[in-house]
């Protein structure tokens, strides 16, 4: 889901969002405080209800923050027609969000327990934590919803049109700025929700998102920048490779194996696992 947000922004804006990890962290903290303070203490919800509510809170926080950052930073820079400044601005936003969270929450890791993380499912000698199953299920649902939105709704089609050719889409009556804002909101909402799901898995501190973002970038590159299907396939592939690396080669070699794969992809198939057909404008 983290990689999907990255690839979505790149697909539409042709821009890498270096602040994406921090939206994940914001989502994780939103979920943590919603689940452990607001939902349980104020609303009196049971653990499961509190955690499920926290996922929606994280989704909303990611979306709102994305909307605000786009309006305050990305949109004005984009209007100037410079491609480099918005890219550098994402680094600035990342540093800002990271340090704001450091000031607000401090550096000592929080313990975020989800009721699903306490459950274990077993199939023979293989086991899954309930949280892992939830991550897969919610991610699959989110991916399906996003796919349906992009494929079958007017807004989704308009968004794809903007991704293909912003100027022509504008001539067809589509407001590109609105669609770009929508793209950023969807991507950051996905990041927020991913934060809620990963919060109980990660070591929750203001730097939590940074630990997943490097892998997310690798997945996006292997899958093909801007290609949703490729990203999903690459995410599954990297997960399987990691599990087998731990089992047969050693956990210390995970990064080595994944990044060798990334380099091989860049050399042998730079378009990614699923090459996107690009038609030149005439």
């Amino acid at each position: 889901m983290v990689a999907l947000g990255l690839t979505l922004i790149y697909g539409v804006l042709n821009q890498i969002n270096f602040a994406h990890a921090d939206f994940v962290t914001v989502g994780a903290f939103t979920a943590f405080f919603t689940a452990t303070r607001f939902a349980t203490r104020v609303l009196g919800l049971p653990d499961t209800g509190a955690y499920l509510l926290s996922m929606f809170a994280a989704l909303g926080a990611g979306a709102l923050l994305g909307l605000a950052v786009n309006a305050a930073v990305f949109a004005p820079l984009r209007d100037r027609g410079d491609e480099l400044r918005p890219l550098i601005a994402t680094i600035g936003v990342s540093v800002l969000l990271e340090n704001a969270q450091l000031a607000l929450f401090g550096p000592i890791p929080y313990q975020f327990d989800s009721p699903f993380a306490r459950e274990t499912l077993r199939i023979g000698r293989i086991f899954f934590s309930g949280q892992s199953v939830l991550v897969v299920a919610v991610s699959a649902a989110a991916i399906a919803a996003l796919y349906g939105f992009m494929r079958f709704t007017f807004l989704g089609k308009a968004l794809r049109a903007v991704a293909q050719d912003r100027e022509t889409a504008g001539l067809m009556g589509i407001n590109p700025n609105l669609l770009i804002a929508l793209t950023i909101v969807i991507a950051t909402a996905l990041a927020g929700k991913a934060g809620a799901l990963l919060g109980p898995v990660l070591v929750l501190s203001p730097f939590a998102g940074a630990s997943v973002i490097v892998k997310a970038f690798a997945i996006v590159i292997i899958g093909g920048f801007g290609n949703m299907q490729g990203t999903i396939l690459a995410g599954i592939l990297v997960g399987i490779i990691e599990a087998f690396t731990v089992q047969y080669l050693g956990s210390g070699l995970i990064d080595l194996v994944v990044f060798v794969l990334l380099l091989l992809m860049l050399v042998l198939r730079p378009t990614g696992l699923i090459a996107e057909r690009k038609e030149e404008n005439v």
Partner: protein
Amino acid sequence: MKLALKAAILAFACAISAAQAQEKVIRIGVLTPISGPGSYFGVMGREGIDLALEQLKGGVNGYHLQVQYEDSACSPLQATNAVKRVLDQFRPHIVIGEECSDASLAIAPILEQAKVVQLNAGSVTMKLTESGYKYVFRIFPNAEQQSLPLAKVAYEKLKARAAVILYEKTNAGNDNADGFEKPFVAMGGKVLAKIDFGRDVNDFTAIATRIASLGKVDVLPTFALEGQQVRLAQALAQAKVVRGGGGNAVQMGSIWLPYGYDQKAGQAAEGYVRIVQFDPTEKRKVVEDFIKAFHARYGAGKMPTHINAHAYDAILLVAEAVRRGATDSESIRERFSRFRDVEVATGKITFGPNGQNTDLSVIHFVETQKDLSWKGLDW
């Protein structure tokens, strides 16, 4: 009138100059991670140092202790830049730091060349005190001092014969893992696997699955920071490997873990055996006084960790050297090397010829109980 004004200004300037000349200061540079994932070390360390400085604000032997903090971020590169900056701008008599072994190793040769004492209170790598540096002193037990007792207890008390060693891929983790493996194997034990991981790993499910497939494992000595230890213990419990999850293996840990780990890991920590140096339940007067002062400053609900205590002790040791007549880096080094049984919150300090504290008398084992409290083990 003009002449009188000039004379007054001159007299005032002379008075300030004289006062500055008479002000006796011991400058202490503190290199600590203030940013990045290791920054909780910096927060806790600063709490301990500020508490000690508050208690010493009247000065020691006429000397005022002046501290300058620099962010070294647990990183060799940033620590190198920070130590050069602090040497250049602050000209310290002593530098306390770093917490992370890799960063501590990076600054040691620079301080050695500058002939400035490095007092370390948080790194375990053997190389820090085994590289022949004259200006390095360490109060934190090194990897061997931590891992050897773990190996002995595993073999002799827990009757363990099969171990899987889990450790972060750093100088500290490597040294601790080697420090356990060699004596354990020499005693007749078998290491089924040594599993290392980077500090960015969060999901330990695959590692726990692998361990579960290795057959009978008796002990799992683990060397990682608190956040990863929590996730690792939970994954091992879910895989039914450790006692906290209904398995048979005992997870073992070192002084790395701060007080409060057990509550964070929850039921997965049940049965966890570890060595501790700073124990808030200890009845020594210096410990009780430290905890009382800590509560008075930071609130009764906050229990100090070993990171707080080690940082606090580092300042007390500098003060002790000054009390014994030290006035500059060279004399601090000389006084440190003569320290014998200097009692502080984390134990007694007797520096060996290599600068390593050799007194391990307060180190003891504890086991996490079902209610997540500690039970002291008489081992």
